[in-house]
């Protein structure tokens, strides 16, 4: 469909500009964080009695490079590297390419967050429908109250609670790392079991933390649609219950798809607290470490990844809406 193609093209162009702008801003901010690790090392070497040339060479040997150009030159260098998907080398992990470091950390964030979010979306939306249909009964009250409670609890409090309960009070799950270090990594039952055991608490936290939002959003959406004229009209035309239910569900879930797409965009950046608490080596933990170590390249790479993810999620949300809502598809404004 040309409308969709044109829309996608526009989005991609705008997204690219957005990414460049954000990258520039984060580049400037990162370079202005006090405490340059290379400079610190360099000055230390000079204090130890080296000549500036020697110190520069020693630092370069240690880190594989030594920044010498002005900020402007560094910026151009960085941006041109960006177009070759070269994000530079990590400072805190000498010799490692930033892209490799990010890629290896990303899977530990993406998988648990994805599983947790989808799980809570499915359960929350289903429960939301029940909460809406039974809204005048006990079940509806229980569901709505549980939703409000969980929605009101901050993610990190939930993480601490779960951690305290399941690893200390009732030690049935382990936390820290992705798997037991005593288990031989590989495609075997013990390793996979250990992986699942370690991922359970982070996934449960993601799921529980967003479950409340889904149930409340779906409930109010269903209640609104149930009151719509076309549902009564469908009943008065004698449509089957199942058909009427599909009318309700499809109309009610529409706004939630947008929230889902957007929340998947936060997938890469929203896990900092939880990964810290469970000591789970994903992107969040990587970002914290890179900031502590003043690892510019890694920080920039992590920010870039978060930016790209959010931009893509926004585009995906809009395209999804275009695909499922005919009113948007033929809508006049492309700015929706």
């Amino acid at each position, binding site marked *: 469909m040309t409308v969709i193609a044109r829309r996608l093209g526009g989005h991609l162009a705008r997204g690219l500009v957005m990414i460049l702008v954000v990258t520039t801003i984060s580049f400037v901010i990162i370079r202005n964080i006090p405490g340059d690790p290379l400079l610190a090392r360099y000055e230390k070497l000079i204090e130890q009695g080296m000549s500036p040339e020697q110190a520069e060479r020693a630092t370069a040997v240690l880190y594989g490079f030594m920044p010498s150009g002005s900020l402007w030159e560094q910026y151009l260098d960085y941006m041109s590297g960006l177009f070759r998907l070269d994000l530079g080398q990590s400072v805190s992990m000498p010799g490692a390419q930033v892209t490799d470091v990010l890629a290896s950390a990303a899977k530990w964030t993406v998988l648990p967050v994805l599983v947790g979010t989808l799980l809570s979306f499915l359960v929350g939306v289903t429960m939301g429908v029940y909460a809406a249909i039974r809204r005048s009964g006990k079940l509806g009250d229980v569901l709505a109250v549980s939703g409000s409670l969980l929605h009101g609890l901050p993610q990190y409090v939930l993480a601490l609670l779960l951690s305290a309960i399941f690893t200390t009070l009732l030690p049935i799950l382990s936390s820290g790392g992705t798997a037991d270090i005593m288990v031989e990594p590989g495609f075997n039952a013990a390793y996979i079991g250990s992986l699942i055991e370690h991922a359970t608490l982070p996934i449960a936290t993601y799921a529980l933390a967003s479950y409340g939002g889904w149930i409340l959003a779906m409930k109010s959406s269903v209640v609104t649609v149930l009151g719509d004229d076309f549902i009564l009209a*469908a009943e008065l035309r004698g449509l089957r219950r199942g058909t009427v239910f599909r009318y309700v569900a499809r109309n009610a879930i529409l706004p939630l798809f947008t929230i889902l797409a957007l929340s998947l965009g936060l997938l890469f950046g929203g896990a900092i607290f939880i990964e810290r608490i469970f000591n789970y080596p994903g992107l969040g933990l990587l970002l914290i470490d890179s900031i502590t170590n003043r690892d510019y390249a890694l920080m920039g790479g992590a920010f870039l990844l978060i930016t790209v993810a959010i931009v893509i999620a926004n585009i995906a949300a809009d395209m999804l809406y275009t695909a499922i809502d005919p009113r948007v598809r033929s809508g006049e404004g492309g700015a929706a």
Partner: protein
Amino acid sequence: MVMTSVKAPATSGRRAPGVRVSGLSVVYRTPAGELPAVSGVDLELVPGSITGVVGESGSGKSTLALSLLNAVQPPGRISAGSVEIDGLGDVVRLRGEELRKARGRHIGYVFQAAQNSLNPLKTVGKQLLDLGRSHDVADLRALVRDARDLLGRMGMDGARVLDSHQHELSGGMRQRVGIMLALVLNAHLVVLDEPTTALDMITQANILRIVREVHEERGLTTLVITHDLGVVAEIADRLAVMYGGRVVEQGPTRQVLGAPRHPYTQGLLRAIPRLVGDIDEARALPGRPPTLGTIPATGCVFRERCPLRAEICATAEPRAISLGESIVACHVAEAGAGPEGRTRQAAEARKAREEHT
């Protein structure tokens, strides 16, 4: 015209059914207890006629319309009475699948034009197919063909409309789609709830013409709910006036509008502004219609606003009596009071009708 009450197979050639509403009461559950929205309504729809029901907001006319499909929405419920439809039996006693299948196939319901009676996410054609599948229509192609013909009959490009979503149609087009969906399964009893409200005058006239023509071509029994006396004057053969959940006057349209017997009907006609003459001649009915909670429990529901109020009106509810071709529920009309006053009012009303049509 008598039809057997034996249930005919749904697909056999059907004729316009007669409808007899007797003693129908509908109550709504509120914090203050169950309050009556419709009480003891008797109404007969003559087969093949167009009956208009007029009343102000809250008079119970829409509730009455929904009762014909046994579709009063909670917290309301039908508390007494029956709705006998030829070929269906007492609709009030229908439940579950039987009721669902009666809706759409036997009784078509057309929503107010301003309401969105179509699923915004599906094309009209897909909703038509949903309708067909829900009623086990074997030949869906024929159904689509019928729908296209009906739409064409109403002056629209059927193929294009079936391919459209609701938001691509104008109010008048939506209303014709609503009529199509009510008729496409060959229902012979059609209920139109405020069919022209919120439409502009020209579209309104078009829709009324279409209703009239389709009614005659397909041999329907039609019930039109409206607050607009002009609408009923234009298309209805018979007219029922509702006030406070009761039918206060009913009869042939000509009779009711030409020689109104009930002071409420008379007041309604007096309130219509004239195209010619002094605008001040139009006199609004004093007071306001009762709401669910303020309908008097005893006596006549209209007495608070009635210029002819008598002692008895506060204590006894007026019986429905036949006066000529009309049925009227009014103590004063029953006592035959004020003949000269009535003549004057009748003349005024006749003038009103002539100017309105």
